[in-house]
């Protein structure tokens, strides 16, 4: 038995049967990180020493709950008290957080142990993790390929068995797209289901924290841990707490699934397209109704996304001014220069590009034409989903139009990079939940993910459909990353 190969629910079984200790689990991961991290480079900060101490404490004092003694990896834009939160930016290279995010408080209360902070595109802006100030992260299936992004470190770490599961954040696809590129499961919950308190904001009206896991069962378990109303986040929604593992039933009979034709049109890789059509066939075979439908919002959603997300980001990132914390330029002669030099030197090019875009669309004279109009179109997009969900339970699309691309391949073409978000972005615009699950490998041995989109706060149906598919195609059982060099 190789501990790091196991899913979390398998680890819990062993812990429950006392066949394994928490220290053994943490040790196995620490060894695995020693072995593979140099190839994958998923981490910004490794905290396995602290994790070992925690595990020792739990083993000696006894576990106080189901998840006690289970390790986890955390995207480096989620605050842990006393640990660096860098957002993979020079700006926060040395920023040690003075407080815990709500999700971290929840995990700590259950006895979960953090193994470290995971690499990402700077301030979660990007889809390849190439925008990290520190280093690229490599895709475990092919080390010359990107892991996706922005939660690329989280996805690669889970795929490479460097952590059993991880938290990421998703503003326009930042959990689902890297999950798809790395052949794992990634869920963006409904906006408002998980507290954002302690997640360094990129775009407040779109950001959600969510799980990146080896399988759907782990995804449902991790969502159980982090979901719920938080009085510290006014946008979190006060709904009844659910046990999502109850939805893990292999049964899609009668489920109505829509496949929007626009998401299989030009620009979508042929093998990706075929994987979606095969998935549709699989669902049909299992008793679901699958119909082609129309959801012609891709272009508009992308435009709306880059206006709203950049507008909010331009304001959210104002606090990184070199005054109270974070990077401050060494040379300046006055206040203006502290600001300009610190931000010029502290932010990378992608972050600056989006701050400039966002500042522009909020400027007086342009506000109505861009930001205000984008808000109106956002309502239209939400209504479009509403319309489809009157008839269907689930919408099936690709997670990304392509599989993972080569490192350096798109990094000089921001527009092409933005277009790669076309399948995931509309889901954030509408605030509905979406999950990416691996379907198969393409002809080059790279994973292809399918995306299932559900109604607001109907994660259960998503889990049921995802679980059924997973049990049927057995992707994880049949495929392993090869660390191709």
């Amino acid at each position: 038995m190789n501990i790091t190969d196991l899913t979390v629910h398998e680890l819990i079984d062993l812990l429950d049967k006392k066949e394994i200790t928490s220290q053994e689990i943490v040790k196995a991961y620490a060894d695995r990180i020693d072995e593979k991290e140099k190839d994958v480079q998923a981490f910004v900060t490794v905290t396995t020493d602290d994790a070992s101490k925690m595990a020792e404490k739990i083993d000696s004092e006894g576990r106080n709950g189901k998840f006690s003694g289970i390790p986890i990896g955390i995207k480096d834009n989620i605050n842990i008290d006393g640990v660096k939160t860098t957002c993979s930016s020079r700006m926060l290279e040395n920023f040690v957080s003075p407080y815990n995010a709500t999700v971290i408080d929840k995990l700590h209360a259950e006895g979960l142990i953090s193994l470290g902070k995971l690499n990402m595109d700077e301030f979660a802006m990007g889809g390849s993790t190439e925008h990290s100030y520190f280093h690229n992260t490599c895709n475990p299936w092919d080390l010359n390929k990107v892991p996706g992004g922005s939660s690329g470190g989280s996805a690669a770490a889970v795929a490479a068995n460097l952590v059993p599961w991880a938290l990421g954040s998703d503003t326009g696809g930042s959990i689902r797209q890297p999950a798809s590129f790395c052949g794992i499961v990634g869920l963006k919950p409904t906006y408002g289901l998980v507290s954002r308190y302690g997640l360094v904001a990129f775009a407040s009206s779109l950001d959600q924290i969510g799980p990146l896991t080896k399988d759907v069962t782990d995804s449902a378990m991790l969502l159980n841990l982090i979901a719920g109303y938080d009085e510290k986040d006014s946008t979190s929604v006060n709904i009844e707490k659910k046990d999502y593992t109850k939805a893990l039933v292999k049964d899609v009979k009668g489920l109505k699934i829509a496949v929007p034709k626009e998401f299989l049109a030009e620009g979508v890789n042929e093998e990706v397209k075929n994987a979606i059509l095969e998935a549709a066939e699989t669902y049909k075979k299992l008793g679901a109704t699958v119909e082609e439908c129309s959801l012609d919002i891709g272009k508009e959603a992308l435009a709306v996304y880059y206006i709203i997300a950049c507008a909010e980001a331009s304001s959210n990132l104002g606090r990184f001014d070199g005054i109270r914390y974070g990077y401050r330029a060494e040379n300046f002669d006055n206040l203006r220069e502290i600001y300009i030099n610190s931000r010029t030197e502290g932010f990378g090019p992608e972050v600056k590009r989006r701050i400039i875009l966002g500042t522009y669309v909020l400027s007086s004279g342009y506000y109505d034409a861009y930001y205000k109009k984008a808000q109106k179109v956002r309502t239209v997009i939400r209504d479009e989903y509403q319309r489809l969900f009157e008839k269907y339970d689930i919408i099936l699309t690709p997670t990304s139009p392509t599989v993972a691309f080569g490192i350096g391949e798109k990094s000089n073409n921001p527009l092409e990079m933005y277009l790669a978000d076309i399948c995931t972005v509309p889901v954030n615009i509408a605030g509905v939940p979406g999950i990416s699950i691996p379907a198969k490998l393409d002809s080059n041995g790279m994973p292809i993910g399918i995306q299932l989109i559900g109604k607001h706060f109907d994660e259960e149906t998503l889990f049921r459909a995802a679980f059924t598919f997973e049990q049927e195609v057995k992707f994880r059982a049949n495929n392993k990353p090869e660390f191709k060099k």
Partner: protein
Amino acid sequence: MIRDDYEMVIGLEVHCELSTKTKIFCSCPTEFGGEPNTHCCPVCMAMPGTLPVLNEKVVEYAVKAGLATNCSISQNSKNDRKNYFYPDLPKAYQISQYDKPLCNHGHVSIETPEGEKDIRILRIHIEEDAGKLNHDEYGRGSFVDLNRAGVPLIEIVSEPDMRSAEEAESYMRKLKSILEYIEVSDCKMQEGSLRADVNVSVRKKGSTEFGTRTEMKNMNSFRSIVRGINYEAERQIELIENGEAVTQETLRWDDISGRTFSMRDKEDAQDYRYFPDPDLVAIKLSDEYIENIKKALPELPESRKKRYMEEMDLSEKAANFVTSSKYYSNIFDEATEKCNNPKAVSNWLMSDIAKVLNEREEEADKIPFSGKELGELIELIDKGTISNSIGKKVLNELFENPKAPSKIIEEKGWVQISDEGAIKEVVIKVLENNPQSVADYKAGKDKALGFLVGQAMKETRGKANPQMLNKMFIEELKK
């Protein structure tokens, strides 16, 4: 006073710190002072990842202020971000309200030499205060203190309805008084919890167009508001008379030199990039919520003034004075309840008490004794236990070392002598010692009586009941 052919047009943006226990978006205390950066948490220090949560008390207080100034309350409101960089603004945006303020279109009335006048209020909105910069006197740098960052404010924006510095002062005093009455702010101007941005322009009398205005920022005393407005109006008139244009700009009033200085020029005109704060949800108020606040409002100055004039027969002048401050008015109510002599109470407030405050350069909130104590003092005078002149000495004692007036006069031995036997003794002694005055009186010189009474008062160190003295002297002299 400005030239007769010009008139001023003045509008005020009044910032008032609310006296909620906690800040507007976190649970830090709002208390003034404290070591720098001790009333702070990750939220008000704008640590990455923190989120604001609106303090519902702030909404309640702002609605109270709106209702007390005759505003209509908006049932659908929201918070917006005002983006700009400054070291005292940790998020690099201030959470404020832009196009949907909580309160709209109210008015308050002020007294002018021409009678009552309504000053219209355009809007009242809620927002957070910024921190404070302490500039090192040795030039080693500036230090940011975020204790004040996130303290709740309301901004009350008037229409440009005031036509003189005195009207602006009256308006500001009226607002202060209302905000004190409804207990939403301590209105301590010296601590900056009530301050005004003053917009001034001038125009030729009879003109209906507005001139170019300038804005004086952060004025925090009545005196500087009056001086600043007069200075600024004269400066603008002089510019116009010299054929120059007034520049629309933001100014800083300097109390020491008595003049204004430009703070920033036009090129720096800020684009605040207002947009709705996506971290906060819309503010929705039900009819019931607003109605409940309305019902719980304390009696406001207008209504008290009416009551004092109609039920207690005070003159308009006295009623205006007494209601000019919640503190006067509350003392008045309490004292009147005790002594049942409203006229005497208002006289004491207007003359002796106001005089002491004036000498001490203090406001009515600094009166150290209660209305009950003042009421007792008046009662003692009315009953003849002490004389009016002893009463004034008791008042001074009340300012120094407040306690029950009956206790003060007992401790000081100031009780009036009203015992007939004792008084008769004094009267006979004085008559014996002053035969000339007795003779004068008998010869028809009535003035001699006053001298004799004065002698008797001297003899008793002011404690003899003057009415009884008078009466007894007359009786004895008739014999």
